């Protein structure tokens, strides 16, 4: 059985590192903060390896099926209605895979940042934030309770906010961090209400119980959840779709993606960790976690997920072709790949060989984490060298940055789906699943994967070839601490495809071999090569062809370059609608009408008392007169009215 102390240490070592570096980083550690953070994470990484070996090879299986183990569950907040938020640890193939991914990528980023962030004034703060993020992310993937996952969900959100805004004196970074937080918060609103709906109908917040109650056909909970409907959609579908909204926000799916490109304002290693490899796939993870319910009881929601996924994949790939900031290209590429993972889940069935999509999605999540982190770290190395994010400042860098060049090339080949690099295998699985379940999705996905190859190699050629060599910079590549992660990740990105992933991760825990057909691969590989070739023609040498093409289709190009004006639409809604039509009137009404009434009543009282105070004149004659009137009045009253 799993060792609970070790399991708890995996997230708590980063937490300890966060607290210690956050409180004493500046005073005690200073420049050694990085080492301290890295060391604690290294231990955490070793423990994750230990745990995953134990899970996959020793105690994870019962009767050949991987079990969902909950070795730890502590009641955190018990509501009076029987629902309870527990702090627990769940061990199943996807959570074990995720702790490996998170600790490994995070470790790479920790090491890389030792050089990349050196000399930064808030060096220890940076590492404490990284630790906070790692802790939250590990907590998220290990959550055994849907409310627990929401708690950590918010915590990764805030660490992302803090890290995007790390260069806090740059107004654009501040704006980006706010945007990221608010957009994902909006999505989390859906998540929260979804949780409320699901918990109301299932009567539990615990994942295992929830899944069990909402998938067993005879259960009363399922029956009420399906039969109760609102606006023609069943309560169950509402709940799951709302939860998916949270996932869509965090995973930057269209139309909640607008924060991700801006999030590139953060330090580049942070983008590699949070906005490429780990946090942005949290939405995929969430859908995978609830997958049995979706597949068995709510196929409609799964269709929604497919739709959103495939749209995101395509749109993001199109936009990526036009961007000139290399980090933004990578950001859109991340979006697009997450779209792949999402629709792979969407087209997947549950159990046995139906679950190819599920396995392929998780596989792609895994390989994507490796090659995308590599791409970002490589981009970081380039940015470190030229001090700019813009393509126009780059070109011909292959001589100056040889290691970066080779590793970047490997990553590009992997993401473009060129065999035998890792991306090829995982993407094949996804395409196959799409082909079997939904041809329309398949064709769109195929087109997108061609685009992927194009925009990645556009980036590659533009950075490393294009112009003849730039003016020489004084320093070369970033040194050992920056190169080691690149090399390790490149090895991973190159060979990870050969992992028999279906042996470990499948929709129902049973063994699955991802099917593989040479014939089927011809189309995507050819398209990929075509994409690479066209990028080569356009960008290997400086020539005007690319500009000619873009000016040829200038209208379309502009539309895509401006990201289909989605940002502008949002801006309109927030500025013109929420601020001008809700916020300002609310503030005005409060000051003028509601408070106006208060002041009016005050003023009336005052005015009335001004008028009647003259009665109290202090002159005896007046009082005598009032007295006389009073006596006469009373007399009249008593004699004539009451007839005393």
């Amino acid at each position, binding site marked *: 059985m799993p060792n609970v102390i070790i399991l708890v240490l995996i997230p708590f070592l980063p937490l300890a590192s966060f607290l210690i570096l956050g409180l004493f980083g500046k005073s005690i550690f200073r420049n050694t903060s990085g080492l301290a953070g890295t060391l604690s994470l290294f231990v955490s990484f070793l423990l994750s390896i230990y745990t995953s070996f134990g899970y996959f090879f020793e105690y994870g299986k019962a009767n050949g099926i991987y079990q969902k183990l909950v070795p730890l569950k502590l009641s*955190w*907040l018990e509501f009076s209605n029987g629902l309870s938020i527990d702090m627990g640890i769940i061990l199943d193939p996807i959570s074990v895979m995720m702790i490996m991914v998170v600790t490994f990528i995070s470790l790479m980023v920790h090491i890389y940042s030792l050089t990349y962030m050196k000399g930064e004034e808030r060096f220890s703060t940076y590492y404490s934030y990284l630790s906070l993020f790692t802790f939250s992310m590990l907590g998220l993937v290990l959550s055994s309770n849907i409310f627990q996952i929401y708690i*950590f969900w918010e915590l990764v959100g805030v660490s992302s906010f803090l890290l995007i805004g790390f260069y*806090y004196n740059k*107004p654009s970074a501040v704006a980006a961090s*706010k945007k990221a937080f608010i957009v994902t918060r909006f999505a989390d609103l859906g998540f929260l209400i979804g949780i409320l709906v699901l918990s109301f109908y299932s009567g539990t917040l615990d994942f295992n119980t929830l899944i069990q109650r909402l998938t067993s056909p005879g259960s009363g909970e399922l029956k009420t959840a399906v039969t109760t409907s609102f606006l023609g959609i069943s309560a169950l579908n509402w709940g799951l779709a709302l939860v998916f909204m949270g996932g869509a926000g965090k995973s930057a799916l269209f139309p909640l993606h607008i924060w991700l490109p801006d999030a590139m304002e953060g330090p580049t290693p942070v983008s590699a960790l949070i906005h490429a490899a780990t946090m942005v796939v949290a939405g995929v993870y969430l859908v995978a976690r609830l997958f049995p319910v979706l597949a068995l009881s709510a196929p409609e929601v799964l269709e929604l997920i497919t739709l959103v996924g495939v749209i995101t994949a395509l749109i993001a790939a199109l936009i990526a072709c036009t961007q000139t900031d290399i980090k933004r290209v990578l950001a859109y590429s991340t979006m697009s790949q997450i779209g792949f993972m999402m629709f792979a889940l969407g087209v997947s069935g549950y159990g046995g060989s139906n679950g190819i999509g599920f396995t392929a999605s998780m596989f792609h999540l895994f390989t994507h984490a490796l090659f995308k982190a590599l791409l970002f770290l490589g981009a970081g190395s380039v940015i470190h060298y030229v001090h700019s994010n813009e393509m126009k400042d780059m070109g011909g860098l292959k001589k100056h940055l040889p290691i970066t060049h080779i590793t970047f090339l490997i990553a590009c080949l992997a993401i473009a789906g060129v065999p035998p690099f890792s991306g090829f295998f995982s993407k094949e699985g996804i395409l196959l699943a799409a082909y079997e379940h939904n041809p329309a999705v398949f064709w769109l996905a195929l087109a997108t994967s061609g685009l992927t190859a194009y925009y990645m190699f556009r980036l590659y050629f533009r950075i490393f070839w294009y112009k003849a060599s730039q003016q020489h910079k004084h320093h070369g590549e970033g040194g050992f601490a920056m190169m080691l992660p690149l090399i390790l990740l490149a090895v991973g990105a190159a060979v990870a495809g050969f992992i028999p992933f279906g042996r470990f991760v499948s929709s129902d825990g049973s063994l699955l071999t991802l099917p593989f057909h040479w014939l089927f691969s011809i189309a995507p590989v050819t398209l990929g090569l075509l994409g690479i070739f066209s990028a080569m023609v356009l960008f290997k040498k400086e020539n005007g062809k690319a500009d000619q093409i873009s000016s040829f289709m200038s209208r379309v190009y502009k539309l895509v370059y401006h990201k289909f004006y989605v940002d502008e639409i949002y801006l309109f809604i927030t500025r013109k609608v*929420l*601020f001008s039509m809700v916020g300002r009137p609310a503030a005005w009404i*409060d000051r003028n009408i509601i408070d106006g009434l208060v002041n009016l009543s005050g003023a009336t009282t005052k005015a009335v008392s001004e008028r009647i105070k003259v009665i109290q004149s202090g002159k005896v004659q007046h009082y005598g007169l009032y007295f006389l009137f009073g006596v006469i009045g009373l007399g009249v009253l008593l004699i004539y009215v009451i007839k005393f």
Partner: protein
Amino acid sequence: MNLTLLIIAPLITAVTMLLMRNAQQVKWTSLVGSAIQLVLAFALLFVFQNERSAGNTEQMLFQQNYTWFSAWNIHFHVGVDGISVAMILLTAFVVIAGVLVSWNVQKMVKEFYLMLILLSIGAYGFFLSLDLFLLFFFLEIAVLPKFLLIGIWGSGEKEYSANKLALMLMGGSALVLVGLLGVYFAGSERTFDLLKLSRLPIPQETQRLLFPLLFAGFGVFTALFPFHTWVPDGHSSAPTAGSMFLAGISMKLGGYGCLRVATYILPEGAKEYSTIIIALAAIAILYGAFATMMQKDLKYINAYSSVSHCGFVLLGIGMLTKTAITGAVIQMVSHGLMTALFFAVIGMIYDRTHTRSVKKLGGLLKVMPFITTIFFIVGLCSLGLPGFSGFVAEMTVFMGSWERPEIPYRVATIAACMSIVVTAVYILRAIGQTAMGPVTEERYMTLKDASWNEKLAAVILITGIVVIGVAPFWLNDLVAPGAHHIIEKISQLNN
């Protein structure tokens, strides 16, 4: 434990302060006095938990009952349940923090501290009272110092604000008084005793008549929409500690009164009016949040956000479920701590930069990292980040509210949920403008970070916020049985 200690201790502090000669002595006396209050509050928590774990399930513990005015059957009757213990703890936290941040007050130091201590006497007495007359007596004790705090030590349009606040709160008190007398004469026995009254059958018609009086009366204190307009003006004119006490303690008197007096004694009235309450609460939550979004002055931001946050208290009470009421009480504690800290930070920033305008501030993180970090923490707590108390409170309210499947309740709950987005918008705007970005004015570069007293105050309040946020179960277990007693009659009505 002898509960009168909690009233006597601040009384002794006040008397000792009168004997002190200089400002320094006064400050230290009040600091020691408030530290003693904190110790007493923790002692109360401790003995209370002990009694409970020993199996004492009586509703009110440590009761003391003396006849005060026999002709009217008025008693000095005190006792506590989990809810009162939680509120007393909150009061003790806010008092010591308020005393600490006022260390630099120059004008009439003795009188200033006297007001603070007097206010705390009113609050403790209020939370302890089990006799309605006594409760009203302490409520009035708590109102007067606020008027003076704002009128004398305030800033801006202080006379206007002080008058407005005092008049509106007095108006609320008047409603309460009428309601109390109504209750007194409505029962079959002439009594002000809370526990007795809760068992007396009060005719439904009377309940319907009296409930709005009591609820609205107390509601004025806790910024019940539309009687909330004293909040922004009062806060913005009050001195830092005044704002802290006002929002941290005084607004909680109202919430507690709504719960303990109106809802508990008049359950049928509560049931009758619950849809109106939740509608007003939901309006306050969203409307307060949207109004906050447009504010440019830090104090106005927190004042309007208090309107929004106190809406959660009223929402929880109006839902009339055990979980929601527990959530309402947790929200009172959480908001009390959080808002006190928020005003403390604003005070610290204002003392240094002499401005509270969001537009003029900027880049403070570079200049005063400690203060700005507190600002971040309190902001994140305000927008309901897990790990801080606000999250626990709001989620408990949401969970409890969702138990009511009827359409109006659902609508109100979803509206309340929406505020988590709007809150994020205004908090991040405030933080982004003031703490982040480039330093806007040259003179900010030389400003000093927090002094020892400010640090200590912040640490005390943050401890409270984090302890509740990380380990909420103890507070939940403390409050839930109390909520159960309040809701008991209503659940009987439902069955």
